[in-house]
């Protein structure tokens, strides 16, 4: 069963709707203790990094998610949920993240001068290497992205796929059993649903 972490930010229902549509057993997890019963978890998220991290810490989710990762159980961070997996963010000040992946989250605006921000829309990805999460997904597939900050991974080897917006940035990452999608698979039509299905099939 996939647990969808509810820590009070954004639209979890669309993640649940897409898993329901795919007939994938899932449950919205409202209490940190509920994580233990899950085989896999999805960490969704929209909004600001600092506020989201405060909620994960205050509600007691942060520690449970870190323990879940230590047990090598699969985690998928979506959008802000992927950014939270990193060490820290420079979104309006400096904030500590979950520290499951080495690297930091940086603003596009410093690097991207003449393009509209937030980045909102469909962008195509370049696949860097094969992985079970990318089964059936090829270079050129497009996904729905919504963000103003991007992840800068310390190790390039964890970047399964990249996208471009002025600069190249990680679209999909994997470090062991910790996965992240910068885009919203639950909002990316057939290609996005395929990613969720692949995540469900991971051992």
């Amino acid at each position, binding site marked *: 069963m996939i647990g969808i972490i509810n820590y009070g930010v*954004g*639209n979890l*229902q*669309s993640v649940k*709707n*897409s898993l*329901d*549509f795919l007939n994938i057993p899932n449950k919205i997890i409202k209490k940190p203790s509920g994580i233990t019963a899950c085989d896999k978890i999805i960490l969704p998220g*929209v*909004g*600001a990094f600092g506020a989201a991290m405060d909620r994960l810490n205050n509600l007691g989710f942060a520690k449970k998610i870190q323990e879940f990762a230590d047990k090598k159980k699969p985690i998928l961070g979506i959008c802000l949920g992927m950014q939270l997996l990193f060490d820290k963010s420079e979104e309006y000040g400096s904030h500590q993240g979950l520290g499951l992946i080495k690297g930091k989250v940086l603003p596009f605006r410093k690097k991207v001068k003449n*393009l*509209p*921000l*937030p*980045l*909102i*829309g*469909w*962008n*195509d990805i370049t696949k860097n290497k094969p992985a079970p999460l990318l089964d059936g997904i090829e270079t050129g597939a*497009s996904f*729905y*992205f*919504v*963000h*103003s900050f991007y992840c800068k991974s310390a190790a390039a080897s964890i970047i399964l796929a990249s996208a*471009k*917006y002025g600069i190249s940035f990680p679209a999909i990452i994997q470090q062991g059993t910790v996965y992240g999608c910068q885009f*919203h698979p*639950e*909002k*990316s*039509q*057939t290609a*996005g*649903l395929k990613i969720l299905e692949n995540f469900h099939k991971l051992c």
Partner: protein
Amino acid sequence: MLKTRLIPVLYIKNGLIVRSEGFSYHQNIGNVVNEAHRYNEWGIDELIYIDISREKYYDLRRDDHNVKSYNSIGNIIDEIAKVCFMPLTFGGGIRTIDDVSYRIENGADKITLNTGAFENPKLITQAAEKYGSQATVISIDYKIIDDQPVVFTNFGQINTGKSVFKWIKECEDLGAGEIFLNSIDRDGRANGYDIETIGKVVTSTKLPVIACGGAGELNDFVDLAKKVPVSGIAAGNIFHFTELSYPRAKTLLKKEKLNFR
């Protein structure tokens, strides 16, 4: 590379989809959820819903036409979000942060503020702080007066006297994340987009701009996309009344080597 979005806009009045012309003529054309389902099957980029009900009454009476009843906008959003795996934007009648939360918690990814933002600009900041700028879209209805685009509110009926450029700048500073620009003069007239104004708006702001109003034939999309680097091109009537217009528009835009999905 980021694609330009092609976005159908559905106007909901008392729970039914209607056709709009000059912001005043409304003809019922169908069921909200069935339409959403049809668009989802075409793999569309995004859907925008604008609720133009004057009174909060959502009873669908056309049961004989396989039309189901919805008693609230939350109910409508909930039903649509179950069958649509694409970004969903809802607007119309949003006046308070509770109105914003109600829509997002029922499954909307973004909301649009129009009159509500103009009457209470703090609402923009409240929405952006709670759900992020990316979820806070400002819908602007305008008319050209003395060669300048002027903001109109209340279903396009009240002339605020404010310049569109000035209002966009204020919205940007307050935390808005996107602009949905509608030409009242062009609504339902099918005589092409207001390319001149859209071009000036796109140049004037760092926010993504979605332009709406005036699409009468598929070439109108091509014309706008070639001339202005808009983030999104939106249209209502053409997608309802022209057979397979969405997939045909995409084919045409790609044939013209324009950057669409």
